Every structure is written in C-alpha cells, then in structure tokens.
C-alpha cells in the first residue's frame, strides 16, 4: 500500500505478473540460495507469474542486476541476503512505484516500497544445541563453518549456548573451512570434522554450505553425529544427521511475495520460532518418516518442544550474536 499503484505493480499485475530474484553470489552450492530460488519459483507458478533469476558475482554486479530488474518493471524485485542492504537503501527511494523485497535482512533506512523478511535463525540453532547437548556423550561439541564471519556466528554461538543450557559441562569448538573456496570445499570440511573428532568431539554442526557433506562423511566414518543447516540434510547421510537448523526461506518468501502481489507491501516481517519461519525437524509432525536420527529419541524431542515453547513464550531469550 504505497504510492504509485496505478503505474507500477498494479499495471504489471493487470497484464502479467512477474518476479525477479537476484542473488548476491552464483547460487552454486549454497543451499540457502537454492531454497530461496525454489521458493520464488514455486510462488511464481502458484500466482501465475513469470520468474527470472539474476545471479550476481560481486557488489557491482548486484547493483547492475538491480538496475536491470528495475528497467524490466516486474511485480516484485527480490533480493536475498544482507548484501542488498546498501543497494536497497537507495534504489527503492528512486523508484517509488516499484516493489522490492529483501530476504534475510533490512537496511537501516527502509523505504515504504521495500518489504523485508528476516529470520531468527539463532533460535533454531539454539534448539539444535539443546539436542546436541542431550545427545553428546563426551560433552564436546563442534561446528565446522565455512568462514569466520559475523553472520555465520548466528549458527555457532547459540548452538553452544543451547547445549550448555542442558549440559553445563558441554564445551564447543568451532573450526572454519577457509581457503580459497570456503563455501564449496567438502574435502577440507571433512578434514576439519576429523580434526574435531580426533579431539573427542562427538556431535558436529555443519555450517559449511557445499562442504557439509564432507562433515557428514567424517561423522559417519567415526560414529559421530552431525547437524545440517538450511534444508533437511538428513537424507544425505541417513542415521548420521541428528537434525537440521532450518530456515523456511521459501515459506516466508512465498508469503511476502503473495502479500506484495496483493498490494500489501512494506514493513519488516520477522520469522522466528513463533512464526514457524525457522525450526528444527524435531518439531515436525511427520518426523518419523524423515531420516533424522533424533527421531529415535522421544525424550529429546519432548525437551526441544518444551524449549521451543519457552522461547516463544519469552521465558528463554536466545542471544543474537549480531545484536551484540
């Protein structure tokens, strides 16, 4: 509900609806981006809109892609991730008739024609930590993450905090893949996981994007357990993955796009446990059919559900590493 309805989105919806999704990097091995693409694609099909994907390579090409998208005048321009904060601070103001949607972040100065969706993934990571704390025998936990960057700490710090909440003696070690292709180096990720296992770690959260499978392989070979992130990764290594820290990007994205298409734009929609925007598989009803190892521990599931309720009720506050 912002100005210029007659020219921009409305005009487009009168003829054909269209969605342009811009990623900050090539989608490649990034399961988060893959899910974002899938969500937008399916929503487009659902509402009868055409869909286009622009993959960017660097900040300049993000800006160029946004420009090109603006020229194409689609129903909505979706940008995924905080990499759009800078561009979406200025461009929506220059094109008030165009709707924009930023997934996973929001610029400080938000224009009225920009809708934002963000997630409290730390809440889900905390839940995974609870599971890990309960299931670890050694009390030693680890995370193999792609890079030591602030955003990735949202999967690390709450994970260890969750574990500590149920097992005060639990300790956590993060190791980072790094190197020249940190987001797609399964061999290095596997090696990091083996290093952790060599130190007695028996539960590892894999936050290494394309490297996750390497972590699972290391865990499987050594009888350790792992957590996946972003999507349900249990089928990739049945029995070895306890659970996943899931971000329902597709769900949130679909809802936001539909709202915008229906003329309800603007504002920030935050998806946490309360909104079912993030979660773990243990909370799912059809868990038994999944291949997640947590299914075999009903007591853990019960505890997780209880913690979830406590978080939703505000009894437990999960610290957001980015807020500090």
């Amino acid at each position, binding site marked *: 509900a912002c100005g210029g309805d007659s020219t921009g989105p409305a005009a487009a919806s009168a003829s054909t609806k269209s969605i342009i999704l811009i990623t900050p990097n090539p989608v490649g091995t990034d399961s988060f981006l893959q899910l974002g693409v899938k969500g937008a694609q399916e929503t487009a099909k659902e509402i009868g809109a055409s869909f286009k994907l622009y*993959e960017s390579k660097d900040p300049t090409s993000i800006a160029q892609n946004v420009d090109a998208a603006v020229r194409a005048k689609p129903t909505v321009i979706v940008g995924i991730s905080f990499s759009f904060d800078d561009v979406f601070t200025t461009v929506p103001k220059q094109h008030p008739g165009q709707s924009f949607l930023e997934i996973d972040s929001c610029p400080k100065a938000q224009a009225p024609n920009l809708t934002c969706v963000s997630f409290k993934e730390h809440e889900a990571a905390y839940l995974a930590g609870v599971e890990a704390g309960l299931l670890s025998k050694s009390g030693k936990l680890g995370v193999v993450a792609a890079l030591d960057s602030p955003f990735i700490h949202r999967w690390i710090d709450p994970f260890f905090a969750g574990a500590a909440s149920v097992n005060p003696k639990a300790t956590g070690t993060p190791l980072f893949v790094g190197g020249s292709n940190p987001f797609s180096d399964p061999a290095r990720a596997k090696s990091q996981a083996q290093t952790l296992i060599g130190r007695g770690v028996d539960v590892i959260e894999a936050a290494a994007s394309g490297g996750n499978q390497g972590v699972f392989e290391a865990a499987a070979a050594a009888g350790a357990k792992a957590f996946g992130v972003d999507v349900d990764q249990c089928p990739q290594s049945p029995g070895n993955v306890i659970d996943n820290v899931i971000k329902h990007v597709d769900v949130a994205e679909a809802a936001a796009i539909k709202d915008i298409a229906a003329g309800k734009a603007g504002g920030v929609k935050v998806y946490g446990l309360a909104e079912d925007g993030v979660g773990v598989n243990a909370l799912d009803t059809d868990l038994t059919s999944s291949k997640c190892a947590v299914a075999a521990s009903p007591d853990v599931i019960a505890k997780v559900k209880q913690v979830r309720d406590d978080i939703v009720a505000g009894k437990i506050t999960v610290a957001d590493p980015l807020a500090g």
Partner: protein
Amino acid sequence: MSAVRLGSLARGRAAALGPLGRSAPAVLAVAGALVVTTLVMLVVGVDPSDAYPALIRGAVADGNLEYTIGAFVPTLGMALAFAIPLRTGEFNLGGDGQMALGGVAAAALALRVPLPPGVAVALPLVVAALTGAVVAGISAPLHTRFGIPAIVTTLLVSTPAVALSSYLVRFPLAEPRTGIAETPLLPDAAHLPAIGASGYVTIGLPLILLLTAGWIYVDRRTVAGYEIRATGANREFARYGGVRVDRLAVVTMAGGGAFAGLVGGLIVLGPPFRFVDGALTAPGYTFTAIAAVLLATGRPIAVPFTVALMTILQVGGEGMERDAGVPSQLTQVIQGLVIVIVAALATTRVLRERRARRAQEIDVGEANA
C-alpha cells in the same frame, strides 16, 4: 629451479614487441571465437540471435555502460599491475593481495582520519597505491637476494595478504551488527566524485586512462622505458649498458603493485563506499587482466583494447544471462572458450613468425655492402 625456463618465457613475451597496427590476427581470433561460441550456443539450445544482442546490450546499452566502465577501470588497473613488471621479465601473479591490502589501507585511513574534502579522496588513494607497492615490492629483493622468482613469491604473498585484509575487516575495522565482514560506510568526503548520475563512473576512469597513457608514453618514449624493455629482453645486456637492473626490478615490481593497490583504493572509495570482505577479489580482476595483457602480446598500446574486450565479455555475459536466459555456467564456458581461442590465434608463434617474415622486406643497409 624452473626460474630459468620461466625467465625465457618472459623474455619471449616481452620480446614480441613491435609497432602498432598488426591487428589482423586479433580480429581473426575474435571471429574464430565467435564461431565456436555460436556452435556451443546452438548445441545447448540457446538462440544466438537472442544471446549476442543481449551480450552487447548487457555491456553497453540500457544504462549498462556505466557498469562496464565500472569493471573496466579496475581491470585496466590490474592489467598494468601485471604488465609493468612483465616488461622487465617479472611475473606479478599476486595482484589480489596487493589490491586487497591497498583497499583496506584506503578504507582504514578514510574511516579513522578526518580529512578535508579533496584530500579525503586523494590521500587514501595514494596510501592504497603505496601499500600495494610495498606488498609487491618485497618480491624484488626476494628474487635478487634469495633467488626466489617473483612468479612464486607474488603468488605466495598474495593469499596471506588477502587473509590479512579479511582479518582486518572482520575484527579491527568491522562494522558492528552486520552480517558480512565489512567496514562501516566511508564518510561522504571520501567518496570518489562521480561522473554522471549513477555513481559507478567516477573520476577513477580518467585517472586510470591518464595513468595508462603515462605508462605507454614512459615505455615507448623515455629512457626509463628503454631500460625496462632492455632488462626484459636481456638482463645481462641491460646491466652491461649501465642499467641498475636490481633497482629497476624493485621499481617496476612496486610500480605494478602500486596500480593493484590503487585499484583496491578505487573500489573501496567507489560504491558501495566500503570495504566488503571478498568483494575485491570475487570478480577475478587479477586473472582477467593477466589474460588481457598476454593477449596483447607485449604491446602496451593494445592493452586497453584487450582489457575492454575482456570486460565487455564479462559484464555483457551477465546481460546475456539476464536477458537471453543463458545459464550463468554457460557464460563461464563461453568466456573460457573465447580466451582459449583468442589466445590460440593471437599468441600463436607459428602465426607470429609468418607475420614477422612478411614484415621483412625493406633494404636499408645494403647500400654499404
């Protein structure tokens, strides 16, 4: 050590200098590349009549030109970073590290030290260039004093330099409460003055063009250029002629590094006006530039043109992805193919020799026989 062979490689390349205007093989090369690329498109079911216009539009039309220029500037800068030391026979493969540390230095200065307008742009650029010069410059004494070829040291220094820049923006210089490792926004006074509306064409363009022209002039018309070329052609000959080759190696290595550092500074002082971790190295300017310089087969004057070609391919490739539905992986395939084919045709010795033979006709000295 393989230095011997690499040295001759450089000599051969630095050697292939010659006058202007022998562009026939380059044209042939581009034509050949087009043919093969078209075939690839047809095979995978992309309509070339959509793809090529999309490529051109993506590079120069519809307001994309500014982005092409935005990519041309750093690529040309990185080309000089490689080409300048190459003239003395040294390979600078460490552009990434020089650029990243140059960028961090510029960002740190702009963020930490309040500077008056004008100076706030100029000084960070100068500091960026100096930083790049120092990072590259160390390779020269490592070669002359310890015998480790620059092609090795530049490569070995680059990764730690990038890692250091990454560490600096992750910790001491980080913007708090944001997802990525990046610095805060630089103060307005430090933003590169833009030419035109978008902000992507900045004074970086005239600056780099001016500097390139300066380099070509120095190379062709000055004593220093002569000494540099002589060193590249035969180091011992230059030493014999009184050229201080070791000092020259430092100067050219550092000169190349200065350009890489300057590019880092230009990127950081341009939109989005901050150092974003990985953003400098992600576009792969360093290796694109190397390919462009080698395609120019040692002719400085050709460098801006080969850089333009590569940039158009790169930026236009994204347009092709957007408008013609060419998958992004295919864009890479096409770029790779174009480089291979253009190199095959333009740098082929067999071809060069034929060219050289044709040039050999005039008979000046015969009179005194």
